[in-house]
């Protein structure tokens, strides 16, 4: 590997006289957008982590006064909101952007400008919802903002305004991106890349896009109701006017539970790429892995009320939702066993990515099993809203989603930057992270079983909670250096990492057949696929001998375009630019950025309304609307490619 030259030359020649900032603002390249997503969401991940550190510092001892109660409420609300909407979801989106087109053999996503728009509105929405924490006016109603507490009567300040509007802005980003990726996967697969040959990450992403498309409209409706209640005096959640406070809970969790699978399925997908590659064996039970992903997504819509067992829905509803919840354990268990069987008998290579992937299996099982304990309503009534629940979902989200994403970053970093991340630092990061996360989250089970409720600012001594809180805080303080090691490794490896070739891990899928980092057009010739593991067909045919190989779709592809590479699969070495090769690429444009900015300005105007500041309110609302409508019109009337 060491003899391979560093980044090919086209990366330098492809950026003509534009400044770096300008090239970011105007990019429509899914790979650049993917890395922008990656950096932004890592920033938010660190920010959410710092918020967690303050929370843990406050809870370290009983009757502590490190923070005020108001600051504490803002911190735990923002920790949840940041981690869910600004860290894990966009970290997954970074991989959607970077990997989906490469894995299916496409040159870009279906709508490159919409893709840029998704990123910019995510970034601006993230800034919108995060900025208030620096002035201590951040949202303070919990990440699920239960009405009527989140209504104007009980939260009169601007805090929850930021939350209601910020989540709507972020929802636009998620919806735009999900339509884009679903279309990309349906329409832009290379010839022969039929659905049952897609890499498992693309499969899980595909399911995730449908979860987003179907669940985000629900939270949008709930938020629009709340927004109208807060700003325009409607009474959707006002109990004195006859509203039912359960409406918000139902709407929120119909979105909120699929959201859990939106967070975890991409990580499952990443792990399903890392495990076979590093076990040097095909994924065990590929079709069942795909089907169980679909089933998790499908069942995920029928379980929302298990978040509400304690509201008194009655035994029938409780039993039904308990049963559907337990059903989800079946496809999830199938995945766990298939990962284990993928490693079984394989020739395992313990790279940093592989360690994280294996740790995900173990930690997710702990989170899954504690989840089954509160799938049963009688036992849930002992646990609901205690730290036991906090322990459970941190095992699922940190032990599941975040470990999977770390595995993905270590695994795909070489593809993104042409250099590998330092394995020694990766191992340090892994072990510190692994020990610290267990030290942080495992004692929470016990604090919860001893009755410690969630979201309390402080607690009295003598209830048996001190030791467990102290342990959790120590663990959190240990997570900080672990993350620092990772951040240092990440940025250092970009410049000083060991240069690698197109396929440093000897992986089987299409994204590894092109140079690292890939040229702007990804594939000089669109590949023709005959099996699930095209690169292993070339280098290790014995590994894929039992998998069917056909040329489905080849004839039609050549009839339609005639530009496909009829040669067998090979590793590409093309280093010319798109222009030299005559490949039409979407042109750079700043319009998506301004559409996003206009929408965010329009929403910010509303913040001034409750204070009676009509001039800035209407100036921002009308100005923002004019901006996004104008730029959207210009965007839609400009062709995608300027040279063709």
């Amino acid at each position, binding site marked *: 590997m060491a003899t391979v030259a560093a980044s090919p030359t086209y990366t330098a020649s492809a950026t003509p006289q534009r400044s770096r900032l300008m090239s970011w603002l105007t990019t429509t390249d899914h790979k650049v957008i993917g890395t922008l997503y990656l950096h932004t969401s890592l920033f938010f991940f660190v920010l959410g982590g710092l918020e967690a550190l303050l929370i843990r510092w406050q809870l370290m001892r009983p009757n502590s006064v490190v923070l005020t*109660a*108001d600051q504490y*409420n803002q911190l735990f609300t923002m920790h949840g909101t940041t981690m869910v909407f600004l860290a894990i979801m966009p970290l997954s989106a970074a991989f959607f952007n970077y990997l989906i087109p490469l894995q299916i053999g496409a040159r870009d996503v279906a709508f490159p400008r919409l893709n840029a728009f998704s990123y910019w509105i995510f970034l601006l929405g993230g800034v919108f919802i995060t900025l208030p924490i620096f002035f201590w006016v951040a949202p*303070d*109603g*919990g990440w699920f903002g*239960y009405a*009527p*507490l989140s209504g104007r009567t*009980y*939260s009169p300040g601007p805090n929850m305004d930021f939350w209601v509007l910020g989540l709507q802005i972020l929802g636009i980003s998620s919806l735009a991106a999900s339509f884009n990726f679903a279309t990309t996967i349906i329409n832009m697969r290379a010839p022969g890349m*039929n*659905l*049952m040959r897609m890499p498992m990450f693309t499969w899980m992403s595909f399911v995730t896009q449908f979860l987003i498309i179907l669940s985000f409209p629900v939270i949008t409706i709930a938020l629009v109701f709340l927004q109208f209640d807060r700003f325009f005096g409607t009474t959707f959640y006002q*109990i*004195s006017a006859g509203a*039912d*406070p*359960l409406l918000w809970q139902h709407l929120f969790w119909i979105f909120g539970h699929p959201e859990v699978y939106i967070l975890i399925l991409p990580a499952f997908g990443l792990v399903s790429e890392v495990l076979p590659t590093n076990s040097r064996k095909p994924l065990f*039970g590929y*079709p*069942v892995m795909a089907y169980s992903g679909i089933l998790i997504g499908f069942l995920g819509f029928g379980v929302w009320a298990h978040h*509400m067992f*304690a*509201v*008194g829905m*009655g*035994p029938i509803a*409780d*039993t039904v939702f*308990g*049963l559907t919840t*337990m059903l989800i354990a079946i496809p999830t268990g199938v995945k766990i066993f298939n990962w284990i069987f993928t490693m079984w008998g394989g020739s395992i290579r313990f790279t940093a990515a592989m360690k994280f992937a294996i740790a995900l299996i173990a930690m997710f099982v702990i989170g899954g099993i504690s989840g089954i304990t509160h799938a049963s*309503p*009688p036992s849930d*009534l*002992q*646990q*609901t*809203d*205690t730290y036991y629940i906090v322990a459970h979902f941190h095992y699922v989200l940190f032990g599941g989603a975040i470990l999977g994403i770390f595995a993905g970053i270590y695994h795909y970093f070489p593809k993104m930057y042409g250099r590998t991340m330092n394995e020694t630092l990766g191992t340090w990061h892994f072990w510190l992270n692994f020990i610290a996360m267990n030290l942080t989250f495992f004692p929470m089970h016990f604090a919860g*079983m*001893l*009755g410690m*409720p*969630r*979201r*309390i*600012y*402080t*607690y009295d001594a003598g*209830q048996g909670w001190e030791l467990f809180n102290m342990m959790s805080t120590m663990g959190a303080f240990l997570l900080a250096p672990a993350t620092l090691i990772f951040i240092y490794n990440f940025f250092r490896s970009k410049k000083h990492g060991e240069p690698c070739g197109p396929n440093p891990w000897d992986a089987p899928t299409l994204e590894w057949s092109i140079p690292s980092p890939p040229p702007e057009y990804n594939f000089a010739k669109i590949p023709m696929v005959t099996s699930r593991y095209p690169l292993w067909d070339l280098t290790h045919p014995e590994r894929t001998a*039992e*998998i*069917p190989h056909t040329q*489905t*779709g080849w004839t*039609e592809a050549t*009839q*339609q375009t005639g530009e496909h590479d009829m040669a067998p699969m090979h590793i590409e070495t093309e280093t010319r630019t798109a222009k030299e090769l005559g490949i039409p690429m979407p042109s750079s444009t700043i319009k998506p950025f301004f559409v996003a900015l206009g929408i965010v300005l329009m929403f910010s105007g509303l913040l001034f309304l409750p204070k009676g500041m009509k001039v800035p309110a209407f100036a921002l609302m009308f100005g923002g609307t004019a901006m996004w409508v104008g730029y959207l019109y210009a965007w839609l009337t400009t062709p995608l490619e300027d040279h063709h």
Partner: protein
Amino acid sequence: MLTKVHTGLDAVPGVWWKPAHRAEKMWVAIAFAWCMVLFAMMPLWHWRGGQNPSGIRRKVEPRAFYARTVEFTKQYQVGEDRGFPIVQPPAGSDVYLTALTYQWYPILQLVQGEKYRLHISALDVNHGFSLYPLNVNFQIIPGYDYALEVTPTASGDFRIICNEFCGIGHHTMVGRVIVLDQRGERVSDNSNARLTNAPGGTTGAQP
């Protein structure tokens, strides 16, 4: 021009479709039977095991409920703790408890082994009823009366902790339930974990 669409869902030939091994079939049969047992256990435990309190939930006007609680408090008040009324209703009567930011009103004084019909509701936002240290949890929602048939099975001085986030004073929202022993006398504050005659290990809520 339309071409044939490849769904990719062609049959997958391969090792996966071999007939199942005898051990695998047995494993599936045992797992299925065990699933059925567990599924049946849930409703059975609910109705017969007496572990999970079945509340009856009715719609109610929050202000009217609070007014009823105040009236109930005036009727049966027996004492006071730092300004909070202590109320001892007669056995078998309807008992009212209102959650409001950030207090539980009033303090209830019940007698061990007697039956009460407990009505809990909230005046303003969602609250959580959690009996410490015994950890029974309900969400208390404004507009809904959560009615429970309650027989205290342990005597002592219990705390009600709010476990549904309700705002800035959430952590201070602690209520009190005093359960007198069968002779009608108070037991010392520290004995609240002493269970007598408590099947299922749960107190406060026996249907």
